[in-house]
């Protein structure tokens, strides 16, 4: 189920469209403070169906749309697409690739697409069930999570175990 590419436009600091191609093995994402590295991680969480604004470092969902800078106007829509190889046949086998797309408009409307076909958020989260990825995945790790596991935030510890069981 290898990732092949991630396309981000209008999400957080991505005022211009950015496309990242993933290969096998270990990919490093580097750059100075504040340039957008964690925003890429947020984009992946978001397209996989994350609904908790706190996990996206935002107060409300609308804040994830590019809100402009001194030199640029805000955008009206955020769109993220994640494409991976259909090696686990999550979709019927005639598809070699699966592309998951999520859009949010400033009006509050949301759109979800699977290989370009409109669907519901539920279809996307169902697709990833049992693969170990999705919101709250033990596969997306930041230092804040290390803290939560070690402190007595017992629910986070139990949640991890139950997700694997």
């Amino acid at each position: 189920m290898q990732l092949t590419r991630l396309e981000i436009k209008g999400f957080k600091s991505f005022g211009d469209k950015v496309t990242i191609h993933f290969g096998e093995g270990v990919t490093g994402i580097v750059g100075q403070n504040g340039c957008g590295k964690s925003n890429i991680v947020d984009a992946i969480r978001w397209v996989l169906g994350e609904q908790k604004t706190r996990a996206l470092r935002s107060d409300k969902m609308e804040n994830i749309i590019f809100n402009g800078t001194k030199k640029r106007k805000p955008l009206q829509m955020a769109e993220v697409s994640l494409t991976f190889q259909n090696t686990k046949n999550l979709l019927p086998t005639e598809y070699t690739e699966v592309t998951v797309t999520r859009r949010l408009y400033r009006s509050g409307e949301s759109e979800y697409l699977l290989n370009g076909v409109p669907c519901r958020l539920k279809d996307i989260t169902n697709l990833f069930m049992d693969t170990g990825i999705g919101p709250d995945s033990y596969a997306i790790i930041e230092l804040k999570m290390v803290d939560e596991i070690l402190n007595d935030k017992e629910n986070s510890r139990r949640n991890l175990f139950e997700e694997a069981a």
Partner: protein
Amino acid sequence: ARENFLATFEQIRLNFQKVFRSLFTEEDTCDLVLTDPENPLESPIEIIAKPKGKRPLTINQLSGGEKTLTATSLLFAIYLIKPAPFCIFDEVDAPLDDANIDKFTNIIREFSKESQFIIVTHNKRTMAATDVMYGVTMLPEDPGVSKLVAVDMREMTA
């Protein structure tokens, strides 16, 4: 459901000990314990970690770097039950010293045969262990807008 949980718990526990020993040393010990074994579906789970001959009374006594490695061992223990197709680490290496960064990247290289790993980092030693790097930047003429750039490996790991 109770049998299922106990079986998975035992598997995670064994994985935890195995990964912990490769991130620390072979003589180090750790354990996962159900504080209320009569009630596995409700019981809190206690983490016991004893690196390098120390006898910490709780994991809270451990150092910043030791805590990070312990939590990482647990996350990898769970990962080994059901390997996710990709794993993302966002600056998890920040509290680690050089020797521990090497242990961390070694175990990632090992697992990267199974899954893709995406590592966000500022650390040059971690960067040296990646297969490919993407640079993210913002240009002074267009501030606040993220752009992707080619990374000069020699400049980064200078």
